[in-house]
């Protein structure tokens, strides 16, 4: 790199003042981004990724301050600039794309005006600015630009809104684009489209990108180089492919081992975890920030701060023992003790839950919206059914209907152990209520923040098992200890616990009444990958021990593949494919499943041809006639059954033994076209 870097952070330190005390959030970060380069920053929540991004624009929250170091933009130090100079840079040379695109726009102003304003700030006249705005929308592949210009932000889908924000960010022809988790809130297929767009725009414009993400797969596909942050310290940096395939810091190694990928399955592989928990904000370290959790740590690691050590070719790691990192001992045994089926051999194959013709329609502004449409599913004893699909597919509604939190429409049947259950909770026996429980996505919302851990679990035991208050408390303590929530934490409130511990408490509560079926609704989506691994291990252990069945809802296909025995793929409230997990993932797939699978970025960097879906998800209040996928289907054109697809809705047919699909295209034809 001969030319001046676009952005260079030199030993940057940032403090946040929290409750009157300065806490160190970035501990001397040094990195540089060359012109046209894409640099990724990864790390778990609270490691300082976003702070680094905001610091790059010198845009810190009110309680944040730069405590030392330099931020050089094109060789000029931003820390010593006055506010006007910084504003000028932000107007003309640095742009930012935020995680939530709809919140990043002004909800009361039409898209066209907001976008044109950026051009007017750049000196364009009013007419010019509007025509430029239209061109900018076209550049981010928005088909009907004039119509989008007249809309308000809330009228756009998430993917469309993110394109508009990207158009806005590129309007000033910036030299640096800071993207903070730009696709995190988006569905997999939309994420893939936005990422493709960003890659393409980078090729065209040569803009340098600072890309913040927690998703290693996304970073692998988007970035030339990557920096790994832990507790406000940059622990490893290098070419993305090198760092991710040959990590040299124990933290990076641990992080990569936590992720369920490459076809791992609960029956044969156990996920590794990182012991301990991340340090609280601003904790002081004499030595390496990762030493307290590191399997390789020695005495000197806790007393001396390691330097960045050059491993070669720009690959550096802040670790004394970088040579041994890849062979680091695992935190948990790699192989599980016994496969699931053996544990519950006496019950093998017996049906637990039968759902037939489950439907739910809501009325919204006079329209009837069919959110769940004639869904029939089976769950066996000790089995995990994975529910996948993008937002709006009806995953969570199905869960609520099964549990009786929402009443299903007439004609729906939910049968547990051969007993037909009433539609609503109030009409179900306490025993039936306790037999089916749920673990919610967000433990912060699912646990009453004013109650102690003991109370939360104890009350559930008391109500569902009919025990006395004292007995329930004892039983709750046993349960919690079994979930590895230490006794010391039983009197704590949820806010005192980490995300992973909160989820353990929520799982303890779900198991309070010895349930036969637990619905896990995105139980690890709000957690970091290292914590996710421990929670998944725990769920698998519980299943083996108690023979509990799970309905596992997740948008993360790696996680679903790891934990599920059977998989149902949902689209617009319908099951489009259902079968054994390896069959659904192995193919031949339903065209929608195929598109979904192809949109997931792999960490190993293997390039898979993406099968795009045309357009966006139609409104469930006005679904397309015929097959609901037909306007977007990647396999319909040239299939020879187009006439059928657009007029007749296909049934969920058994296309091969145990493999169900809602598609008119014959299985063999799908197999042939998908192998190409």
């Amino acid at each position, binding site marked *: 790199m001969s030319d001046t870097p676009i952005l260079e952070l030199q030993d940057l330190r940032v403090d946040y003042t929290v*409750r009157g005390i300065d806490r160190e959030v970035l501990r001397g970060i040094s990195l540089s981004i060359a012109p046209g380069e894409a640099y990724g920053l990864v790390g778990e929540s609270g490691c300082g990724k976003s702070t680094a991004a905001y610091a790059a624009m010198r845009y810190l929250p009110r309680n944040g301050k730069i405590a030392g170091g330099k931020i050089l933009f094109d060789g000029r130090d931003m820390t010593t600039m006055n506010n006007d100079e910084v504003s000028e840079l932000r107007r003309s040379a640095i742009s930012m794309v935020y995680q939530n695109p709809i919140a990043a726009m002004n909800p009361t102003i039409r898209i066209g005006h907001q976008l044109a304003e950026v051009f007017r700030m750049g000196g364009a006249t009013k007419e010019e600015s509007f025509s430029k705005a239209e061109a900018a929308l076209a550049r981010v592949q928005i088909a009907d630009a004039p119509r989008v210009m007249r809309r308000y932000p809330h009228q756009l889908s998430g993917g469309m809104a993110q394109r508009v924000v990207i158009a806005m960010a590129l309007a000033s022809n910036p030299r640096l684009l800071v993207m903070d988790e730009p696709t995190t809130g988006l569905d997999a297929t939309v994420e893939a489209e936005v990422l493709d767009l960003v890659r393409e725009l980078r090729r065209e414009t040569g803009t340098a990108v600072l890309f913040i993400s927690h998703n290693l797969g996304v970073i692998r596909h988007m970035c030339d180089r990557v920096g790994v942050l832990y507790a406000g310290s940059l622990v490893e940096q290098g070419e993305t492919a090198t760092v991710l395939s040959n990590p040299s810091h124990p933290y990076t190694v641990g992080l990569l081992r936590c992720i369920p990928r490459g076809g791992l399955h609960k029956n044969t592989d156990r996920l590794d975890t990182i012991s301990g928990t991340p340090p609280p904000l601003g904790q002081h370290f004499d030595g390496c920030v990762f030493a307290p959790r590191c399997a390789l740590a020695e005495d000197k690691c806790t007393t001396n701060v390691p330097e960045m050590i050059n491993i070669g070719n720009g690959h550096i790691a802040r670790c004394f023992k970088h040579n041994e990192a890849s062979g680091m001992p695992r935190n948990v045994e790699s192989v599980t003790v016994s496969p699931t089926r053996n544990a519950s051999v006496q019950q093998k194959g017996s049906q637990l839950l039968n759902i037939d013709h489950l439907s739910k329609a809501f009325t919204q502004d006079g329209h009837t919206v069919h959110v769940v449409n004639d869904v029939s599913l089976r769950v066996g004893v000790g089995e995990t059914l994975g529910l996948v699909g993008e937002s709006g597919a009806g995953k969570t509604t199905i869960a609520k209907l099964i549990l009786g939190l929402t009443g299903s429409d007439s004609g729906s049947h939910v049968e547990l152990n051969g007993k037909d259950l009433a539609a609503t909770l109030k009409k179900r026996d306490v025993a039936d*209520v306790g037999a089916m429980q749920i673990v919610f996505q967000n433990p912060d919302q699912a646990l009453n923040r004013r109650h102690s851990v003991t109370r939360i679990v104890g009350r*559930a035991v008391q109500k569902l098992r009919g025990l006395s208050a004292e007995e329930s408390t004892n039983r709750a303590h046993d349960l919690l200890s079994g979930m590895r929530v230490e006794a010391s934490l039983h009197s*704590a409130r949820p806010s005192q616990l980490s995300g992973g511990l909160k989820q353990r408490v929520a799982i303890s509560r779900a198991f309070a009444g010895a349930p036969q079926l637990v619905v896990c609704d995105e139980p690890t989506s709000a957690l970091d990958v290292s914590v996710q691994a421990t929670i998944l291990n725990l769920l698998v252990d519980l299943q083996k021990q108690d023979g509990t069945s799970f309905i596992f809802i997740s948008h993360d296909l790696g996680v679903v593949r790891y934990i599920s025995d059977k998989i149902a793929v949902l689209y617009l409230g319908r099951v489009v494919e259902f079968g054994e997990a390896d069959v659904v993932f192995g193919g031949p797939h339903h065209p929608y499943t195929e598109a979904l699978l192809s949109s997931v970025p792999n960490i190993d960097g293997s390039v898979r041809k993406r099968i795009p879906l045309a357009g966006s998800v139609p409104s469930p209040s006005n679904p397309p006639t015929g097959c609901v996928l037909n306007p977007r289907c990647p396999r319909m054109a040239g299939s020879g059954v187009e006439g059928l697809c657009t007029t007749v809705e296909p049934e969920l047919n058994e296309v091969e033994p145990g493999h169900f699909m809602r598609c008119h295209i014959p299985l063999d034809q799908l197999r042939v076209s998908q192998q190409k």
Partner: protein
Amino acid sequence: MSNVESVNSVVRSNAERKQIRKERLALLRKNKAFVVGTTILFFWIVLAVFGELIAPYAADEMSFEFTGMAPSSQFWFGTDSLGQDVFSRVLIGTRSILVMSFSATILGTIVGASIGLASGYFKGALDTVIMRLLEAISAIPVLIIALLAIAAVGGRSPVITVLVIGFVFAPNIARTVRATVLGETELEYVAAARLRAERTPHILFREVLPNVLPPIIVEFTVRLGYAIFAIATLSFLGAGVETGSPNWGMQISENWSSIFSNTWWPTLFPALAIASLAVCINLISDGLLEVFEI
């Protein structure tokens, strides 16, 4: 697990909790608005308790030799047209206004919070009816309702004033609580409670109520400030308390006409007292808001 270990860890987790509390308290102590507010309030509370002991004269002690005396070393705040010591009457009047405003606000908060809780939880038709009714009540100025009610009951007494103020404040509190409860019932801990077959009252008062306490406390302090004004105003209009009792609003009402004969002290000092009490309550609520980041 050994007992020693678990006890140690409990101490640690409690220590963390204490640490946060300590840091918050430190922040409160540094917060000027809060410190000034609590100092003034403490001062008034001491007077409310010990006013009669501190006051140099009794509240109803009249001296016809000394009517309308300007402030002096003998009568710090002067005397009124009946020859009563203004300073003593202000001190002794503290109790009446503090007790009345606190009771009225507590009453309004309990009634309002219960209505808001039920309305926000059940939603639907019940919610619509209750909210329209509350809006109707709020549309009429507080003083008019209060005067009408006092006239209808046909007597002025502190109890009636407290009841009336409590009643007219309830809609505001109900609306605040309802708005919070609406968001709160979307949270999944409510679904979790339903999934262990809890009864509705348990969900309302044991699960939801503790979580909507912070906005209730803030609304309480805000309403308390208004209550002080409302009670002073009603007393000024002669509707709050019996004539002649030591009460700041009443004092102003009885003496304001003498301002035109340059006898400003019987009016100014009770007015300053009212203002300082209202301001200190607002300072406290500002301080709490800032530190607890509600």
